């Protein structure tokens, strides 16, 4: 508590560290993620409340292609590893490897979004599952669509940092910017693990004996 945030700061970089010894923006991001947990909690709750409550198909077990979604899940989890390497690079002021790892994180994020676009297209055109087809369609698309929106925001955020890093002033002093974007990125990945487990994997377990239509 020796230095007070209100004393001001004289560098261009805005790293205000408060009485907890943690930068303001980091606490802000943690609090926001707490709020976002409830947000996704309510969406997953909605999916579970309406799970198998509809009588008209298509049904989840005849719609999902778990192999494809497993691949996209692996892709997103791998992006978390690259995110860690991105942050480590900028923290040791290694701008070249920051750009490489950050670019790869963005790329894997884009690949995940591509998987989702492919999945949605296939579900709509091949399986006939639209947003207004049945409760499964409504709850599934809103849940995964909201998650996809989060991924897209993360991709934009990291891509912005990547572009910003070419302005010549980007160095280890900006590591906090990367760390906060990283917190968000890891959170979005963790949410996907929950969604993948609850929506896809449990469906497979539950219908292990049901032949695919």
């Amino acid at each position, binding site marked *: 508590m020796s230095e007070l945030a209100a004393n001001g700061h004289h560098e261009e970089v805005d790293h205000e560290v408060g009485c907890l010894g943690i930068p*303001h923006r980091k606490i802000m991001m943690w609090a926001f993620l707490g709020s976002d947990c409830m947000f996704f909690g309510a969406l997953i709750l909605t999916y579970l409340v309406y799970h198998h409550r509809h009588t008209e198909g298509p049904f989840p077990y005849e719609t999902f292609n778990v192999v494809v979604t497993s691949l996209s899940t692996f892709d997103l989890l791998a992006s978390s590893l690259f995110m860690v390497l991105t942050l480590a690079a900028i923290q040791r002021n290694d701008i070249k490897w920051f750009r490489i790892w950050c670019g790869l994180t963005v790329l894997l994020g884009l690949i995940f979004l591509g998987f989702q676009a492919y999945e949605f297209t296939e579900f709509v055109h091949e399986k006939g599952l639209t947003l207004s087809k049945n409760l499964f369609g409504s709850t599934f698309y*809103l849940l995964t669509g909201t998650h996809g929106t989060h991924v897209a925001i993360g991709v934009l955020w990291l891509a912005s940092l990547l572009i910003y890093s070419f302005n010549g002033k980007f160095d280890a002093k900006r590591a906090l910017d990367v760390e906060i974007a990283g917190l968000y990125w890891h959170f979005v990945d963790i949410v996907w693990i929950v969604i993948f487990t609850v929506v896809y994997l449990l469906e497979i377990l539950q219908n292990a004996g049901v032949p695919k239509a």
Partner: protein
Amino acid sequence: MTVNAHPQSAILGIPRPTAERGLVSWLTTVDHKRIGILYGITALFWFFWGGLEAVLIRTQLAFPNGQVVSADTYNELFTMHGTTMIFLVVMPLSAAFFNYLIPLMIGARDVAFPRLNAFSYWMYFFGGIFLNTSWFVGQAPNGGWFGYASLTEHPWSDMYKAGTLLTHHGIDFWTIGLQILGISSVVASLNFIVTIINMRAPGMTMMRLPVFVWMTLVTAFLVILAFPFITIALLELTFDRQFDTMFFNATKGGFPIYWQHLFWVFGHPEVYILILPAMGIVSEILPVFSRKPLFGYPVVVFSGAAIGFMGFTVWSHHMFTTGMGAIANAAFSLTTMAIAVPTGVKIFNWVGTLWGGQIRFKVPLLYAVGFISMFMIGGFSGLMHSSPPGDAQQQDTYFIVAHFHYVLIGGSLFALFGGIYYWFPKFTGRLTCEKMGRFGFWLLFVGFNVTFFPMHWLGLNGMPRRIYTYPADMGWNFWNLICTIGVYTMLLAFLVILHDLLNGYKRGAIASNDPWDGRTLEWTISSPPPVYNFATVPVVHSRDELWYRKYPEAFHDEAGHEAPAHGDDHGHHDAHGIHMPGQSWFPLLASFGFFIGAFGLLYKVLLVGVGGAAFGFLNVYLWALEGVGGYEINPEVES
């Protein structure tokens, strides 16, 4: 005083605004005190607007078979009255106090994110306009403030005109408008959580925080944890209405009851979001006017936190009559009775604070004591419907209307007006007229009880809520007329109070820094405070820091030793000066973009929706790129 300006950078040719007075200075302000004033004035405007809606409602009900408004208009009036008073009046009026006072009370320069704070205000500003635009297109929300499905779904929310079913956009204004206001509240709460946790002056430990700051912190956590539920509920309802999904549409398999659960998982914590700041204000007023420390400070703080936690466990008591079953009813009945315990503890603490004090019955204390007594009446009737069989009798009757108005007017609003009177000298540098203030209080007190007490009897006599008229032979005529007389008395009282405040602002006696013999840090600086708040960062030694400085002899420790001398009382004075963040156009412009985008979503015009949102996000980008900016200020330090 010396000022060192930072070089101001322009982004896309938009120069950084630096106006110190005039319209531009208010549109681009990032000063928490100015934003607090903006919140307060906007909330009071909507307060009179929502009050006029209430006056129309009561005028319609003054006599049986009323003809003042049609049934459709009546539905719109009670929906918008509730929505306005909760989201546009009580929450933002609390936010006005958070903004103005929290940095002053914890000894900080500003909130953690000044521009984000401006963004919260402008989202609230445009959210209020968006909701009320509905009146001007003739399609105001009409589904009640809690918007139960299926009333909010097509086609039931639509209107028959000359035999054809026409789309009625009232509910869309409500769903999208509340989303805008929700963003405002969540963003502001994140800001205050960081500010309170991370920006306390040296020595201001958590257990030295003024109770108002504690209650703000609990409220902010309630907002960020409860609002996501209504965000999702409103999102799903918007999808039902705009994109033909079936979340709450019973004819397609959705459960209307699921809306009620989602709504009240938000809605009950919301009740505490409305009352906890009021409890905080009362906890500040009582010690000052009793000249005693708050009785049982840690217990008051822990009770507030306990109310916050327990607030998430009681939502289904709004749904006892929906057929949840005996076990669910019993469980929620027990949790509801349990939450009365920490609330009751606080009442005893407040009475304990008054007990044996040197009481000065100034206007703020009148409101605070009015709060305690009226809130207790509301609390007792609340306990009555924590019992499911009792609730089955009272559900959807005027008894409920009486209950929540005792809690929200007799509770929240009395405390908020007490807060306005208490901090008025700090806000304006002037005092209000004591006589006029008393007159306004008593007129409000009488008008309030005349309006709402008879509603208990009307409710127990079976008068339902939300009926636009009633036949003459129900035995309800007399008390309805009394209620209406009461509401006109309240209207008069609020005009008296408004006159008193305006008069005080223009002609009131000049107030000193510390007109009430206050105890907390905001009274150590001038009235109104300088733009930089504290010339030197204060060092805090006591829960009642200003009393510690004024009356050190009263702060002997248990062994009778004198309190430690004021070693480093002059605090930290930064030779570089105090950094003041630069003003910014982008919070306003970003909110404006989202506001325009909301109309695109409502009327399903893709170009307007995407264009507005894109303009909003563009401004968020520019905001990130423009940096903090600003200047350094070197005030003269008194020694």
